[in-house]
């Protein structure tokens, strides 16, 4: 099919008089089925979000009697106050500490490893390491929580934020190395050669040449890992215990367990824990989205 199309393409294009660019989109790209699905899916996505937001602003006593899809006439922030007073500031700080503490080292070590793998591809050791990291992509790492739990206990790190940081770094490495290596491979070889002629060491080349040239990829990988770790639930659930070590998703879950009947308050907690990411989304949507599909678009 494809081959017949490509062979017939050229002669006909030449004989075609009118400008192909202007007439094409309107005439042909009308995708009514896609459009219908698009609008339907918009409703499917938007209604729960909208309902969550307006309900979180409703007064608890009047919430049951009101129409669920009509915003409250006099919105209240009481629910939010209640959530903030339930120590959510601490959970927020915990989440920030864990995310930053894991993402920064993860990206740094992955970048160094990716550089070494690309530049030292002739060395068997480095090819073997690459194979090991790739294997990490195929394995559901969540399946290793029991031994991770054991290791964390043996290191006397149970119920600390470091307990969340260390495995998070390890789980982030495979995809980060893969994506960064792909980008470092795209850097023209001549640039590396000229650095070497100038007498630069690998260490200098790494930071002065490879890092600036792969900055978009570094940002992408940082975003992807940050989102994954920020939203992580299993590791905090298994590796911490005391309330003041909770990260936001876990705190949200325990809050729901405690105040489950107070629907507006629970939804206020949902909105509040999501807010930081949504603010980032508002400012850097493009970066965030390209970060999410990192390495899969190729």
């Amino acid at each position, binding site marked *: 099919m494809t081959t017949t199309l490509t062979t017939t393409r050229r002669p006909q294009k030449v004989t075609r008089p009118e400008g192909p660019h202007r007439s094409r989109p309107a005439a042909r790209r009308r995708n009514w089925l896609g459009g219908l699905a698009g609008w339907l899916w918009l409703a499917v*996505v938007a209604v729960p979000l909208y309902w969550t937001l307006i309900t979180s602003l409703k007064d608890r006593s009047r919430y049951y009697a009101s129409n669920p899809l009509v915003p409250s006439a006099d919105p209240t922030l009481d629910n939010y106050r209640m959530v903030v007073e339930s120590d959510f500031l601490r959970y927020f700080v915990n989440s920030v500490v864990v995310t930053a503490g894991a993402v920064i080292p993860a990206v740094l070590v992955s970048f160094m*490893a990716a550089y070494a793998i690309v530049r030292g591809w002739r060395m068997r050791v480095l090819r073997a390491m690459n194979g090991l990291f790739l294997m990490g*992509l195929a*394995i559901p790492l969540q399946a290793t929580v029991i031994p991770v739990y054991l*290791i964390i206990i043996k290191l006397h790190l149970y119920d600390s934020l470091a307990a969340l940081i260390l495995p998070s770094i390890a789980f982030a490495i*495979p995809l980060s190395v893969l994506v960064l290596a792909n980008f470092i491979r795209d850097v023209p070889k001549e640039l590396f050669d000229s650095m070497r002629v100038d007498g630069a060491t690998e260490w200098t080349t790494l930071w002065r040449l490879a890092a600036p040239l792969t900055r978009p990829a570094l940002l992408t990988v940082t975003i992807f890992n940050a989102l994954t770790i920020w939203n992580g639930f299993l590791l905090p659930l*298994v590796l911490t215990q005391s309330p003041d070590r909770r990260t936001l*998703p876990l705190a949200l879950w325990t809050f729901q367990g405690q105040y489950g009947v107070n629907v507006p308050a629970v939804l206020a907690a949902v909105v509040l824990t999501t807010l930081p990411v949504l603010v980032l989304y508002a400012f850097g949507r493009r970066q965030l989205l390209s970060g999410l599909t990192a390495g899969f678009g190729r």
Partner: protein
Amino acid sequence: MSTLTAKQDVRRPQRSILPWLATPALLLFTGFAVVPLVGVFALSFTTWDGIGSIRLTGLTSWRAVLTDPGLPHALWVTFLVMAVSWAVQTPLSILLGTFLAGRQRYRAVLGVVYFVPLMLSSAAIAIAYEALLDPNFGLGAGLKIQALSQDWLGRPGLAFGVVIFVVSWQFVPFHSLIYQGGVQQIPKSLYEAAQLDGAGRVRQFFSITLPQLKYTIITSSTLMVVGSLTFFDLIFVLTEGGPGDATRVLALDMYKRGFQASLMGPASAIAVILVLVGLALALLLRRLGGRDAAASQLEGAS
């Protein structure tokens, strides 16, 4: 080392630092991913309650797991979640991805809303849906629509459906994004040629878009299928595997046996099964993908 020629000596100092650059990543990955992977295998031959001492007990855990009717059930539920969520998400994502790849301005506006679910944690999504689906205080009850105010999470069939729906709600945007990228890479000339040949919109979709997306479909399917093994957070918060064990997938089974019932040995055996299933699926899909990658390269060359 000292017998190296002068020429090699010049290159040597530059090269030798490279393995060291990769060492920090290797150590971290080994310590918290490779060792645990080996460890989970080792722990499956022990008896451990999670706190006390670990005793080697040979095949006891495996015998307990393999004779438990809960295992085939968990495998079946895992498979069902995988298959049904794939069958729901793939056509939807392709359709939406194709739609989003267009250029109209309003699509960009839609795009802003579409991708919000990607930003949210599974825990937040599950909790919001739990409230929304509540038979007494949820959306359906509030609107007084009988069909919507069912006990969604209290009946096995319904709860399974809800899990599939919420999974799709969360991940369809992600896969649409992948398909959007895939569609945008299809050469426009193919469509122009098809149009001149008189092919309609639907025909173009099935003769050009779908075949050209073959590789994207495999990538997206791999992520869906392998990813579905790790739907832990969402199902745990939404249904806790219930009602009964209607939505008790392998990952949940592992957690409940290990951390709730303090049976770390059998839980490790389940983890090993989880790893093996994941590895088998990844290899299977990679074989499919590999053959296609080679095929598409040949096509490009000819």
